[in-house]
């Protein structure tokens, strides 16, 4: 299991809206991941070997994340004009893709949340791990 320190939680956890800071507009580059499998390492957590699982997990409502090239993990709340799905399980089409997104970053309770305004660049699946695991990642 991955260990991710909850750095500075006590310092940033606030109880009143009056103390809330506005989000920061950022560009994040990284791989779209299935947050559950990534954090728990139940299955091959990244790349093409995990593509099918990632789609099913996202379809089931498991939050989708981005493993950033900066080493951080971001939780995706929204994509584009999606305004009805807070959990945003609908970004199936870009699961496992390497993307660059423009988004608002909300850091709250030690978690990095993104509401994505747009996908600036989509390189597709570039993390080809399926040979390593003997997985057929894209079906027959």
């Amino acid at each position: 299991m991955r260990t991710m320190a909850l750095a500075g939680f006590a310092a940033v956890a606030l109880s009143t809206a009056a103390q809330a800071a506005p989000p920061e507009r950022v560009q994040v580059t990284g791989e779209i991941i299935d947050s559950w499998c990534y954090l728990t390492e139940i299955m091959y957590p990244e790349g093409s070997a995990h593509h099918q699982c990632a789609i099913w997990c996202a379809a089931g409502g498991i939050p989708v994340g981005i493993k950033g090239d900066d080493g951080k993990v971001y939780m995706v709340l929204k994509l584009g004009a999606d305004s009805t799905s807070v959990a945003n399980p609908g970004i199936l089409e870009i699961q496992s893709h390497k993307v660059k997104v423009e988004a608002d970053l909300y850091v709250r309770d030690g978690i990095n949340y993104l509401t994505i305004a747009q996908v600036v660049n989509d390189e597709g699946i570039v993390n080809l791990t399926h040979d390593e695991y003997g997985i057929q990642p894209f079906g027959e």
Partner: protein
Amino acid sequence: MGIASLRGGLALAALILGFLAVPGWAHDKESPVGAAAVPVQAGGPFALIDHMGQPVTDRDFRGRYMLVFFGYANCPGICPTGLRGMAATLDILGPEGERIAPILVTIDPERDTVENLGPAVAKIHSRLIGLTGTFAQLNAAAKAYKISAKRIGWTLQKQPIVQHSSFIYLMGPDGKLLTLFPPIMDPEQMAAAIRGYMS
């Protein structure tokens, strides 16, 4: 597609079993000046039926915090993970947790009837409150909380596959959204965060 479109049953084809204590998501950058604003707007009035068969509204919970999760009792995937996480969080909070009403709002009213919800929620936590209702009532609640639920296919066992929102909402004593938590969040971390809001 709303909850009403989910007739025929819901089954989640998630692949993971059991409760998982997931450590917190990395936040190792310089802390901003204060936490960011809540990234979503969610919550609002609802009028539903609890697992004891009693009508309840959001106003019945005024003065208490609410941990609200939308899912369904027989979900084999993210729902039990989120709900068990909520249960573990309550246990960690101990007496402090008595100020919180943990709530499961079903997205499967056909299966999650009053008769079925009681035994189901009792298996998860003795204080977990199951809420069901008519499709119209549940659709209204889901809309207020910006919950989406959509049947997207079928398993080989001919069970529907449904994608649905799965974040846990922490509502304040005034019924307004304080924050949300991922369903995979470590209960210790969630409990610490809740203490921060309750203090």
